[in-house]
């Protein structure tokens, strides 16, 4: 069960930091940081740097994404920003613009 859910229609302007799972269906503008999983659902719009253990993007993210484990850009997802993660996948139908650093 998600620790934090930003529902559709909800907007957060500022920093969101957490030690639990975060799911975004709405808007986050600022900064999003968790030590757990981040999911940007297909309706989610994030204008923020995102940092988590794993980051899964099916919505829109404008900002740098850092994950301690992996970043997955799903079909329909759009990411503009740099990615820093050990593993990074871009599904067919996703769009991405940015740099990737897969430090080992």
């Amino acid at each position, binding site marked *: 069960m998600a620790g934090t859910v930003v*529902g559709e*229609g*909800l907007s957060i*302007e500022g*920093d969101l930091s*957490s*030690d639990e*799972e*975060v799911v975004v269906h709405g*808007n986050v503008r600022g900064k999003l940081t968790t030590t757990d999983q981040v999911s940007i659902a297909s309706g989610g719009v994030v204008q923020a740097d995102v940092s988590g253990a794993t980051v899964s993007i099916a919505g829109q993210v404008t900002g740098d994404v850092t994950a301690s484990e992996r970043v997955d850009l799903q079909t329909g997802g759009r990411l503009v920003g740099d990615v820093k993660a050990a593993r990074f996948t871009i599904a067919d139908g996703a769009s991405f613009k940015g740099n990737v650093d897969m430090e080992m």
Partner: protein
Amino acid sequence: MAAVSLIGRGTVVRGNVRGDGSLEIQGRVEGDVTVTGDVVLGEEAVVRGSITGAQLNIAGTVQGDLRGTESLLVERGARVVGDLTSPRIGVAPGALVRGNVRTDGEAPLATPVARRPGLAAQPHRSAAPAARPAPVAAPKLEPVKAAPPPPPPPPPKPDEPDEPDADEMESEPPSAPAAKAPPPVVPALGKHAKAKKKRRDG
């Protein structure tokens, strides 16, 4: 049905939260929360900022104003410093609240019944509650003095309600708009005038 959001126990939001739908806060928000739906604030949750929603149910700690457009319930265990405004307010025994609590929104406080001198509620006596990061506009219990909309028939000057001049601190008579009679100057009326004047002193 609009979505329900959750700010979990391990989450801190530094910034404002707004939008449609309802919201449950178990973590911490440093900023204002403004939603069209309901807000539930858990016992361990802390909000430094105002909370505005339809039905509010507050069991945690708030430093800021609470406004429920439909209802506002403060449960035992809640600790609130800020103003509470809602047409329907409940504060359970065991809850601690400091601030103005109003069910009538921005009602004018100059009620038809004259306030007696003994009655306090002077504006300056109520020391302002702890500073709140984002005071919600308006419903402050600055009693007696000019509430934003003055009572129904406002006299020429909006900030001089009729009754409470008895207990106003202003030493100068609040009434006496300049347009009114200037200080009486006895015109030279002839002999009678002097005589009258003397009598008046006597």
